[in-house]
């Protein structure tokens, strides 16, 4: 009966066993690689879930740096970077930029004074279509060195549904067990607060590798240094929604500028640990000026549907061994996919 149905006169048992073994092996290997046997694995989905549970309603918004404002402008390269890297947007010239300023929060309605860290993201486009995307923060070092530590920090900031607040013990406990946060916390305590995006320096934090025309690679960390002098204010005087308005006001008077600086690392400088600053006195090369011309509301602005994934790089700039970079790329893609889907459903 079975033989008739299958149309075979040959053996059945051995083929059945072989087929079951081959299919079983392939299917289990697939499930293992996909993480289906391993619910404890730290995946982009779990990271982004946690980021989205730090207060407010992030649906339709970025799961981190959720509150921000778009800008447009250009990057005026002075050509000094061409000795270091073949990136086309480092050749002297002007390249269009789409960007975004934000505060580092999970809540799109957070008060501007509630976030210690602010950020600038840029997308610089070369004439041949190559892109350089970068997200930079106002702290000169990052709080943690690894994705696992970042996840632990995010978990410590997660809202407990029972109280509507994070567990008050969680962040102190995290800090006590993560001494690498020291340099960041020292900055957070001592750096002046200001009431503007315009007067802040922004640091790329992660190391990258610049590759020149001869194929020589050099470790680098880059930063944007403001032309506008910083005006310190007391943190509790910063209004809930002042930053976007301040930006618009300043831009009504004229463009804002930042100098882009490449800080070149020496062979012993850490490239895999964004919590450790490089020693002072490292060679710095000014490669150009970022000119911000106009700002747009995020809800309809040109930055809304951009993923400022820091691993989107032109030829001539490559990833370093910093483990945060791949984790950022994977998490930003997941956050992007979710918020774009949420936008469509609106």
């Amino acid at each position, binding site marked *: 009966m079975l033989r008739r149905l299958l149309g075979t006169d040959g053996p059945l048992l051995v083929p059945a066993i072989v087929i079951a073994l081959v299919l079983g092996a392939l299917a289990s*290997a697939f499930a293992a690689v996909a993480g289906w046997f391993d619910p404890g694995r730290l995946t982009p989905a779990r990271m982004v879930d946690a980021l989205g549970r730090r207060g407010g309603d992030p649906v339709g918004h970025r799961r981190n740096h959720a509150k921000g404002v778009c800008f447009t402008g250009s990057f005026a390269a002075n050509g000094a970077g061409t000795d270091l890297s073949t990136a086309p947007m480092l050749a002297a010239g002007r390249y269009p930029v789409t960007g975004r300023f934000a505060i580092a929060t999970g809540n799109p309605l957070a008060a501007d004074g509630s976030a210690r860290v602010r950020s600038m993201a840029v997308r610089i486009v070369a004439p041949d279509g190559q892109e350089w995307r970068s997200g930079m923060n106002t702290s000169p070092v990052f709080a943690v060195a690894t994705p696992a530590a970042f996840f632990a920090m995010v978990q410590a900031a997660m809202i407990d549904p029972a109280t509507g607040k994070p567990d008050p013990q969680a962040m102190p406990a995290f800090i006590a067990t993560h001494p690498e946060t020291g340099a960041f916390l020292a900055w957070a305590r001592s750096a002046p607060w200001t009431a503007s995006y315009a007067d802040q320096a922004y640091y790329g934090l992660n190391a990258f590798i610049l590759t020149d025309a001869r194929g020589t690679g050099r470790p680098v960390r880059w930063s944007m240094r403001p032309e506008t002098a910083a005006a310190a204010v007391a943190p509790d005087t910063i209004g809930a929604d002042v930053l976007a308005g301040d930006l618009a006001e300043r831009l009504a008077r004229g463009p804002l500028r930042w100098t882009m600086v490449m800080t070149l690392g020496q062979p012993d400088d850490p490239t895999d640990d964004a919590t450790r600053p490089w020693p002072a006195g490292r060679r710095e090369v000014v490669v150009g000026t970022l000119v911000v011309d106009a700002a747009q509301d995020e809800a309809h602005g040109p930055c809304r549907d951009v993923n400022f994934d820091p691993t989107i790089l032109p030829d001539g700039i490559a990833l370093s061994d910093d483990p945060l970079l791949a984790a950022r790329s994977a998490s930003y893609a997941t956050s992007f996919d979710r918020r774009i889907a949420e936008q469509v459903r609106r």
Partner: protein
Amino acid sequence: MSRRSFTAAQKLLHWSMAVAIIAMLFIGVGMVATLAPIHADLVALHRPLGVVILVLALIRLGLRLRRGAPPLPADLPWWQTLSARGSHVLLYALMIAMPLVGWGMLSAGGYPIVLHGAWQLPPILPQSNLLQVILRQSHRWLGLVFFAVILLHIAAALFHGLSRRDGVFSSMVRGR
């Protein structure tokens, strides 16, 4: 067309693409499930390898239409003949659709489509949130369908080779 075997070029394409496609499915599900540094390497491999598969699939389809395939055994039960034909059409469709959907979803998402270094592909769709969502979901679900169809295809191939021993398996393995 009553050859007993596929042409050498068809066999070479079949087996090299089988390895590449199975690798791509593992790379795909692996890279979206990890934050480890290998994520970046896998993504950088996934795009160019996917595009190579697209090119090979089009060449292979051309060969299949021109050179045909050896006939299936006449005594094969009707439902197996039907499944064989249907699944082969489906496999061809997926070999071409998967890379196109990947390329399209990056286009719709406003990403540069980097193959290697300064080599990029142009977008094949305008930036669009709706298309991005549809294609991103399709890339995931078509990937799972692809894997399931490949498993059934392997089961059928082994059944031909080990139980029926009707020359179907060797038509893709042995020289003519």
